[in-house]
Every structure is written in C-alpha cells, then in structure tokens.
C-alpha cells in the first residue's frame, strides 16, 4: 500500500505516491528487481489525470517496443484532450495493463494502482533513476505547474 503526499490547490486535492520516482511532466516509475532485471512499472500521476479529465481510450505502444527516455510510449484520448506520455527511462516495453482496453477509467480511478499503464524492462535503471524526481521534488514541480495554469485565468 503506497503512502501519499497530498496538496490542495484551488479546490482540488492532488496526491503524490511517496514510493516512486517521477518525470516532471507527470509520469511515474517504480522499479522492482526480478531475475537480475529491473522491471519498471509506469503510469501517470493523480495531477495529470485530473488535469486532463476522463479517459476515453488509452493507447500504449505494443510489448517489444524499444524506448529511449523521452520517447512517446502512450497516448491518452480523454474527454477534453489528447495527451502524449513519454518514457521516463531507456528500455523495452514488456507488459501493457490489460484493463486499459475495456476499462480505461481505471486510470482516473486509481492512477497509482490499477490504472498503471505499462512495465518497461530497464536498460540501466540505476542510471535512469538518478535523473528522475523523488516525490517531494515532483510535488514542488507539480504545484508550480498548477499555479501557472491558475494564472491563465
């Protein structure tokens, strides 16, 4: 069970799972070692899912796709926008969340849990993880982004 940092911006409450690492744009990554490989589960943050609205379709690139950090690995079609998601690490997509096909709303309902997107077999997890933000740093980046969005009013 993840623990969460929580912040309120305007009338919205956003949670950040404390047990994982983040791209500043809102993709999370959590690694687990298995048979000398690092398998990194990825998804999008509570902030990113709230910002973009109800997910209608989630298109994740197929298993076997080779990725460099920063490559697009998924696109979400939401009620309000199309959202490209970029890989936090170098590696190969090895698993796609099977629930996304018929129930993509799990991304909105449980962005840090059942709404995970994919598993990437990392090429060099130890090197890539050093380039990602921890939960506190992501929370700061997220707050800054949200405050910029609010200034657009």
């Amino acid at each position, binding site marked *: 069970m993840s623990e969460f940092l929580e912040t309120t911006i*305007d009338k919205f409450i956003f949670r950040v799972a404390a047990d994982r690492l983040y791209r500043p744009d809102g993709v999370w990554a959590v690694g687990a070692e298995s048979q000398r490989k690092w398998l990194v589960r990825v998804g999008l943050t509570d902030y990113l899912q709230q910002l973009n609205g109800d997910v209608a379709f989630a298109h994740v690139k197929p298993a076997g796709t080779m990725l460099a950090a920063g490559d697009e690995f998924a696109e979400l079609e939401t009620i309000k926008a199309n959202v490209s998601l970029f890989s936090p690490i170098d590696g190969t997509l090895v698993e796609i969340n099977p629930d996304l096909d018929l129930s993509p709303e799990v991304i909105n309902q449980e962005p840090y849990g059942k709404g995970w997107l994919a598993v990437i077999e990392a090429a060099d997890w130890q090197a890539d993880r050093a380039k990602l933000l921890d939960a506190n740093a992501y929370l700061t980046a997220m707050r800054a982004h949200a405050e910029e969005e609010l200034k657009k009013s």
Partner: protein
Amino acid sequence: MSQTATYNTTVRWKGEHWGRLEMGNGPEMDFSAPPDAHGHPGVFTPEDAFVAAANTCVMMMFLWAAERFKIELLSYECRAEGTKLIELDRTEIFTRLRLCPLIRVAARGDKPENVEARVRRALQSARKYSLVANSVKSEIVIEPEIAIVEQPT
C-alpha cells in the same frame, strides 16, 4: 486553467403576469409563471427553463462525449423531470432532476456489452462536465435506456 466566460439574458415586464425574454444567443420569447403559480398556459416558464437548461446541457455534453468515446450515435431523446419541494417556510426548491435519455447507437462490429459500457461512461462524463448540471444543487439522476443496433438501417 481557471478561465471564466459570461452569458447574459434580459427580461422585461410586459404587464400583468407576462414578461419578455431576450437571450444572449439571439432568441426572444414571452414568458410567464406556470398556471398553478398564477401564470399562463402555453408559454415558457422559469420552471421549464430550469429543467430544460439541465436537459439541453447534458445532451450537448453527451454529443461531445460520444465523439470522444467514438460512439456512433443514431438517436438521442431525453425526457427530464424536475421535482419541486415546497418547504415549511413556503420557500421552494428543485430537489431532484431526473433525466431519462433513450439512446440508440450502432455496434459497428463491437460487442454490444462493450458499446453499452462506453455509452454509460460517456453519460457519466456528460453529467460530470455539464456546466449546468455542475451548477445546480438539485440531485441529478440519469436513468438511460440504451439500445445497441447491430446494423443500422
């Protein structure tokens, strides 16, 4: 992202229990109160306007949601009913809005249960993102009847 927009209407008293309504988007019409509230039959009333505002707004939002959810809509018709409560102090409130849409969609070769699930999600999004539905304090209940048509004629 906290953007604002304004909409306007103008009402003008025409004598007795009659008024003239000019809507910001162009139409003009006479209005009165309902006959049971000392008004006239056969004309627009605030009560009808309130129920119609929610009904029309949810429908327009559903049309948008249907496009985003890639639903081939064949027909949509919705009867809406507002329930008024007269309180002990004689103030009145719409406590409940009940929307009963009849929705026909094409299966387009997809499994009917999958199409129906998408229609229900689109309806939930329509309710969530409807400006008017979001703005009222009445309970809003949507009771859809959904027909999936294999081969539309």
